[in-house]
């Protein structure tokens, strides 16, 4: 695809069965992409927040937002992309921990302020929390040591108090 950007949408929806399927159906039916998705309840009962990252051409994002809003169970669609926001993603990374690499791994863990949450004879499992930039950086540093597997959540995000960038 030419000229695609990544967009971060924060969507409030009725907490009802089938809502996620309506959103997923909208994306598959209209040929939009979902890059990552995270769904959980909010402080308000009956309202859930969906945080979604979608990659598309700039002309398409407008349609995506309008189509989302058109779904009866969608309350608000907030495009955080050009706003100030905090974003987090949680990942568990299991790496090979050969004796000669252990010090290197621990140094990376230290620099990025991650945690080791599981230790085995030949592996560490590292918990990383941060924005997607941090995730990419740490993955690229750990790769040479031998990443065994990764489990990662989608992004979650909230706008900062003082609105625009």
């Amino acid at each position: 695809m030419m000229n695609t950007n990544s967009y971060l949408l924060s969507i409030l929806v009725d907490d009802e069965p089938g809502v996620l399927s309506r959103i997923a159906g909208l994306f598959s039916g209209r040929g939009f992409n979902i890059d990552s998705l995270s769904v959980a309840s909010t402080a308000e009962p009956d309202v859930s927040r969906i945080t979604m990252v979608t990659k598309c051409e700039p002309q398409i994002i407008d349609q995506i937002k309008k189509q989302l809003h058109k779904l009866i169970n969608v309350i608000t669609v907030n495009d955080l992309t050009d706003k100030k926001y905090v974003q987090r993603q949680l990942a568990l990374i299991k790496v090979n921990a050969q004796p000669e690499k252990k010090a290197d791994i621990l140094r990376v863990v230290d620099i990025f302020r991650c945690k080791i949450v599981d230790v085995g004879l030949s592996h560490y499992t590292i918990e990383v929390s941060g924005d997607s930039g941090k995730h990419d950086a740490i993955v690229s540093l750990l790769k040479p040591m031998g990443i065994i597997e990764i489990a990662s959540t989608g992004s979650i995000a909230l706008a900062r108090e003082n609105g625009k960038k």
Partner: protein
Amino acid sequence: MKFNGAQVLIKMIKAEGIDTIFGYPGGCVIDIYDELAKQEGLRHILVRHEQGAVHAADGYARANRSVGVALVTSGPGATNAVTGIASAHSDSIPIVVFTGQVPTALIGNDAFQEVDIVGITRPCTKHNYLVKSIDKLASTIKEAFYLARSGRPGPVLVDLPKNILQAQIDFEEPGKISLKSYKPNYKPNKKQLNKVVEMIKKAKRPVIFAGGGVIVSQASEQITRLAKMADIPVTASLMGLGAFPGSDPLWLGMLGMHGTYRANMSIGHCDLMIAAGVRFDDRVTGNIEKFAPTAKIVQIDIDPTSIHKNIEVHCPIVGDCKAALEGILHLMEDQKTDDLKNNRPQWLDQIEEWKSTTPLKYNQGSEVIKPQFVVEKLYELTKGDAIITTEVGQNQMWAAQYYHFNKPNHFITSGGLGTMGFGLPAAIGAKAACPDKLVVDVAGDGSIQMNIQELMTAVESKIDVKIVILNNQYLGMVRQWQELFYEKVYSFTNMENTPDFVKLAEAYGAKGLRCTRPDEVESVLSQGLNHEGTVIMEFAVDKEESVYPMVPAGGSITEMLLV
């Protein structure tokens, strides 16, 4: 007082002012039928196939601009309804479809006649519900009607498990509907309306393009006033026919693939297009790059997703068509007439020239009936006052081209989905809604066979519909494409093997008439139209007549194939 779910349902339907519903019984809705047997003031019309029930509800809604209601059972009843629901969705028609469902305890167990109809219809309804508790039944039904008719209308499906229909409840009138997640915006932005007036004053070659949204929002009076106040010629999409009087000198005819030469040329050359209630379907625009290349475009639509979807718009207006047009008219009243009409004789002369050099035409000889001639005679005999439904294909296009609609709600056709088999059940629905109107289904020999069983519905319910079959012994529209673009390989479009339509009509207890000669067209038509009861009038028409003008798919709309 205690009511069961079935009684609540009927109470709520009646509270919406609905007098007729279309349906077909089955195990999961038997409780509702048990109640229907005791009802007065709510007429149930028994169709012969669930697709027919939904098309009939659709025709009912379009004919009197209300909400149509269909009732079907679970499983196959529900899946049979899907084509009807998708057709209504494509044309933004408000209907509520009630489907039976297996008891809640069995849902998900692959029970007998269980399908996930809410899942199946999610992409082709405006919204849908599975009612899981009797407490929610009344409010859900009320919400369903509200959603169907408000904003951009559309079909809503309510799935009703059998145990909910049997459960008892102390009925309480549900309160006013207010949804935090759904607030359609009817009121247009005033600043944008001012901009339109300025654009009209500057325009040398303006055109109004009216769509189904003008019909839905009942804004044809406003469109007509706008056109006359500023001398702006008007074209319409298939769905917009009737929004502006077809006999008015400012009328350009239909736009698009089978639009008139002058309508398509006008869009190709205009400098201002005021588009109201349209979604720029590809059958209208042809090649998007070459559509209205020199025009500033104003687009009015209640649905924000229709705007900037496939056409770049210079002045978008989100809101109800009627409210927006009223607003524009109001602002225009403060303007000088000369400023508004802005010396447009040249533009109107140009259009007149397109009209006179390249009109819609066909040659009616003395031997073979031309299908266009039948529609033209139908128009004359009914004085343009009948409600016309259509099937799909050439018959639909000839009806659109040669029946000159002067009023809204008189042309009922499956535009967006193009559903063959729509016309007959839709005619039944329209006639049920408007018993004093003459209702005629202009049909093709192929399409009429898709829901021919509804002839029995019409006869049984004494809902008189007139069916005009333009029998070309082909799936004509597909044959036309094969002729033009597939080297005349008429692969599987031959329909020489059709039933004897006269005998078929008689078998159902209707009247059947056949016409094979041009000089008999008028008399057969008037005999059929004047007959009390449902009639099939079959016209043996020129087998290889094609619909012209035609814009080949994907071409520029100003490059038309002409006769």
